């Protein structure tokens, strides 16, 4: 029980003792809505500075210092906020070449990222290069389908993590793309790639049944959709093959979506898949509203995108 809830309940008890049944009556009609805000980035690729005014594509967009101010203002509005990243933090500007990811991790820590999953480019300085930067990361790395047990990263990456915000329990798990053929084996060493669909099923079972999460989020670096290669696992395929995931936050394909995708899972229930392009040009923001009144959810969850 959270301390604040406890205090509220203790004072409620006092009220009941003082004014009897009437207090109990009035308490039960108090409306309660909890809003959980999920902020997310993907494929930032060491883009710490904003694009310059002369850039052909992304002039004056992006930049960590602006993202920091935006996140701060959102957190001030709603403290029940999680900040997540879907991988490929590394590689793309000289900041990475000169400092090996140190500055990326330090800034993400300053922005108070809660968790990130691992993208293929995060192995670009080898698994040793990733490990070497871990002391600069004050956030949790989450991957459910990379088995690091025979590598230096063993115990430094969790298969899932739960967060509690105002009594709402949020479970986050992570999925990485197949490394074979994409990353030099000398870079990822004995990292084992496990089937993402199987691991998603295992994780959702743990998070829903054992951990009793109210919200389940998958941080994915699988890629949004592979139209020319329909057998390749993607976020859209994963969504359709699984249940109990509320939101897939994607990466890898640098997909700019006009809005988050609403898609049906294997139980024909609506869920969201989102990805916000790349290079820190956009910040994804998904608000989940919880209500104690069951009647409100009787007609299903309304999704506004």
């Amino acid at each position, binding site marked *: 029980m959270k301390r604040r809830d406890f205090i509220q309940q203790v004072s409620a008890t006092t009220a009941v003792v003082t004014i009897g049944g009437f207090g109990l009556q009035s308490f039960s009609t108090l409306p309660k809505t909890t809003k959980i805000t999920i902020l997310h980035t993907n494929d930032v690729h060491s883009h710490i500075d904003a694009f310059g005014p002369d850039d052909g594509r992304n002039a004056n967009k992006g930049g960590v210092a602006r993202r920091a101010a935006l996140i701060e203002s959102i957190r001030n509005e709603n403290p029940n906020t999680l900040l997540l990243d879907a991988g490929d933090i590394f590689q793309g*500007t000289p900041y990475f070449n000169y400092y090996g990811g140190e500055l990326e991790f330090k800034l993400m820590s300053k922005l108070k990222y809660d968790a990130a999953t691992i993208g293929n480019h995060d192995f670009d300085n080898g698994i040793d290069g990733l490990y070497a930067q871990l002391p600069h990361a004050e956030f949790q790395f989450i991957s459910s389908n990379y088995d690091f047990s025979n590598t230096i990263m063993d115990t430094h990456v969790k298969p899932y993590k739960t967060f509690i915000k105002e009594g709402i329990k949020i479970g986050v798990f992570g999925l990485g793309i197949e490394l074979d053929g994409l990353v030099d084996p000398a870079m990822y060493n004995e990292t084992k790639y496990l089937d993402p669909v199987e691991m998603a099923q295992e994780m959702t079972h743990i998070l829903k049944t054992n951990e009793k999460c109210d919200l389940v989020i998958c941080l994915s670096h699988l890629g949004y959709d592979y139209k020319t290669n329909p057998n390749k696992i993607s976020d859209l395929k994963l969504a359709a093959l699984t249940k109990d995931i509320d939101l897939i936050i994607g990466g890898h394909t640098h997909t700019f979506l006009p809005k988050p995708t609403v898609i049906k899972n294997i139980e024909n229930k609506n869920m969201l898949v989102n990805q916000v392009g790349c290079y820190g040009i956009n910040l994804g923001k998904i608000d989940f509203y919880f209500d104690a*009144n069951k009647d409100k959810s009787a007609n299903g969850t309304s999704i506004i995108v």
Partner: protein
Amino acid sequence: MRFTYLIYLLYILVLFNCKQPKEYLTKIEGKQIQITDSLAIDQDIEAFIKPYRTHIKKDLDSVLAFSAGTYTKSDGEFNTAIGNFMADAVFDEANPVFKKRTGKDIDMVILNHGGIRSIINKGNITTRTAFELMPFENSIIVVAMKGSQIDSLVNYLSKAYKAHPISKLKLSIDKNFDVIEALINGQEIDPHKTYYVATNDYLYNGGDDMTFFKPNEEVYVLDYKIRNALIDNFKKVDTISPIMDDRFIMIK
């Protein structure tokens, strides 16, 4: 004593009634916020980045050479000026290193089209240009392969329909993407001869589906980054003015 008990009882009763055991997800709102220059800047973060930026900028902005034109990887169907420059630069810089170590010459170079990560703009070429062109840390590898395996390499190139950068290999294909002629040092490829092919470690390990490097006779790791070869080349030349040529063409 009894009174305390009553309070506890009431407390449990209230807990049971008031503590919502579950809240229900009723609404989801999703959107994307663009990070633009209309947003405020967090000055603490900006100050934290500054020393890193200053150090890098000083190093990157040193002028190495001059580019006569603007070159992009989309200017050309089977070979491009920028790709030809990169493959030739790798040959020019890696061959002396390889020769010194082994007494042998590199016979050809193959890189990948996707590995050209930026354009070269007309004007000053700086260290930054080399970083943009080749942000990755890949190093040069020389692979000793039999001519019969070079055929697989040539076959890959003929079907890829991409201007993968090559040097010292001359290739022509017909409109069905079948090989008409493939020459190394002006001669047809001898299936029994050993050729020394320079590439990078990413491609050697099967990147971009280049699976033809294995098995092989021997591998020489030069410990020489592609980017550093480009920087060394820029330092040597005054002006670069590469052209699209006839090293890889389709005869229609």
